């Protein structure tokens, strides 16, 4: 791979890992700054139970920003979600302007409320398992998200799932 290609791969990885840190810290608008104005986001899962490729959530940039702004008006479980991710593959398109990436993802819930916070706070629960399927554009050595599909394996979701993953 050319030095240029390598630079693009690094830029993509950097954006993905930064997005994980920002999401972990619930800095939604900083996360959205890493996304193009035309950004499309979805959470999907295949269900063998009903034999259907399901969409659990979908939103564009504007919808995500209104939704995240309204989060404080909603009740919440206060246990933050913490991501562990590994970028498995980055494929830069021939023109070097766009790339796709697949990132393996595990999300833990770091209990604060739990059921009885006296017992549960400080504990971690495996919350979900999946992949980020990302499409990014590369400009001036920086990568920005064009699309993110969170592809879940998990279909049991208890309380705590009202945030972007």
């Amino acid at each position: 791979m050319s030095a240029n290609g390598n630079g693009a791969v690094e830029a993509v990885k950097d954006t993905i890992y930064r997005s994980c840190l920002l999401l972990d810290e619930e800095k939604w608008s900083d996360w959205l700054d890493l996304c193009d104005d035309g950004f499309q986001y979805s959470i999907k899962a295949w269900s063998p139970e009903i034999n259907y490729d399901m969409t659990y959530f979908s939103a564009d940039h504007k919808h995500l920003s209104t939704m995240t702004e309204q989060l404080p008006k909603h009740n919440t479980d206060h246990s933050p979600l913490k991501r562990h991710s590994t970028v498995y593959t980055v494929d830069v398109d021939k023109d070097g302007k766009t790339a796709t990436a697949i990132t393996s993802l595990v999300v833990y819930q770091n209990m604060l409320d739990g059921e009885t916070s006296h017992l549960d706070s400080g504990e971690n629960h495996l919350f979900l398992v999946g992949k980020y399927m990302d499409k990014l554009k590369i400009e001036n050595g920086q990568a920005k998200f064009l699309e993110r599909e969170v592809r879940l394996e998990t279909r049991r979701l208890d309380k705590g799932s009202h945030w972007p993953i």
Partner: protein
Amino acid sequence: MPARNQKQWMADPNLQRGEWVDSRIYSDPEIFEEELEKIFKKTWIPVCHESELSEPYDFRTTTIAREPVIVARGPDNTVRAFLNVCPHRGMMIERRPAGSFLEGQPSGNPKRMTCMFHAWQFDMKGNCVYISREKEGYQDRLCKENTGLRRLRCEVAMGGFVWVCLDDKPECSLEEWAGKPFDCIRESIDAEPLEVFHYHKAIINTNYKLWHDTNSEFYHDFMHYHNRVTGFNDEYFARKNIGFEHGHVNVTSFEVNYDEYEGFESREELSFPKFPPNQWFMIDLFPGMNFNLRGSALRCDIMTPLGPNKVMIEFRGLGVKADTPEERQTRIEHHNSIWGPFGRNLHEDLIGVTGQGATMNDGSEPRRILHGRHEDNYIHDEVGLRHYYDEWGKWMDRLPSDPMQKYTAPAVAAE
């Protein structure tokens, strides 16, 4: 009143009997076991939707009151239910949640339900069609003609849901059991075939009745920012709770103002067939299922009680089978915005009932849980809960407000 001492705290509230229940009905292990025997093994339970087994030889597995159940579509297109238990030595016959018997399995032939253990095989009607080395082992003492599966009462109805009753002689037919409460949406859900597009589950530590309570009362709108801004108006407060025989309840409709919630759109252009725009009807079925038609999407919650303080809730979303891909996508978005696992309301409901479960453990002091709001049956009246618990008392022969006593009718009629 200032905070109360122990005696004041434990005293009966200034309400009529029937306007509160004792928290032991949510936490006592003996009561829980009795509920499985006396209620869940006796009543009609919707286990899945027929679109989940759309082709001949498709199957779906589930449990009712811990009993494993399999539902399969025969080559004659009839959906039948059986205990998912091998008559040989009791292995679970099918272990996957869903699939097709069209393909052979390592131990068995295509078009058969095969027990992988010793390869006994059954057809889609539950007949035993093959016992491996039958004559050698059983001579003429036992033969496949006498070793069929245990068949269960099964009906496809009310919008294509598959209903099963473990009791061969249910108290009444499914139609008599659930027909009337479904009248409000029946025309719409039976107009054309439906399809499930959403499935997820939650397993939470709370009693199944607490989830049903939340589905049956709208007073908790105060917990949902979304409901407050899209709902609260005169029309909203004119919605009524209507009780039906067998403990079922309807909540009547009103026009939801979705555009009041920033980022949400009206659901006018994509209602269910024959369903007026932006309407919202709700059916709460005894002992713990909920059907919710909000304009463009139908939601169904099915509860599987797992213990006094543990329940699995399976959430389904349905649209019309003939939807174009665009229509389907719109229905899915409408469904997800409030009801999806990443939506605005569902998560708040789960927090609410888990919080109740956390204060009602086996051995916790028996507390009074109040169901005493009266507002002429209008939306924030808790009549739906009173109606449910009166039915519960009859099935259990226990008094909901003092469950160690035998059932007697409440002082206030359950309405």
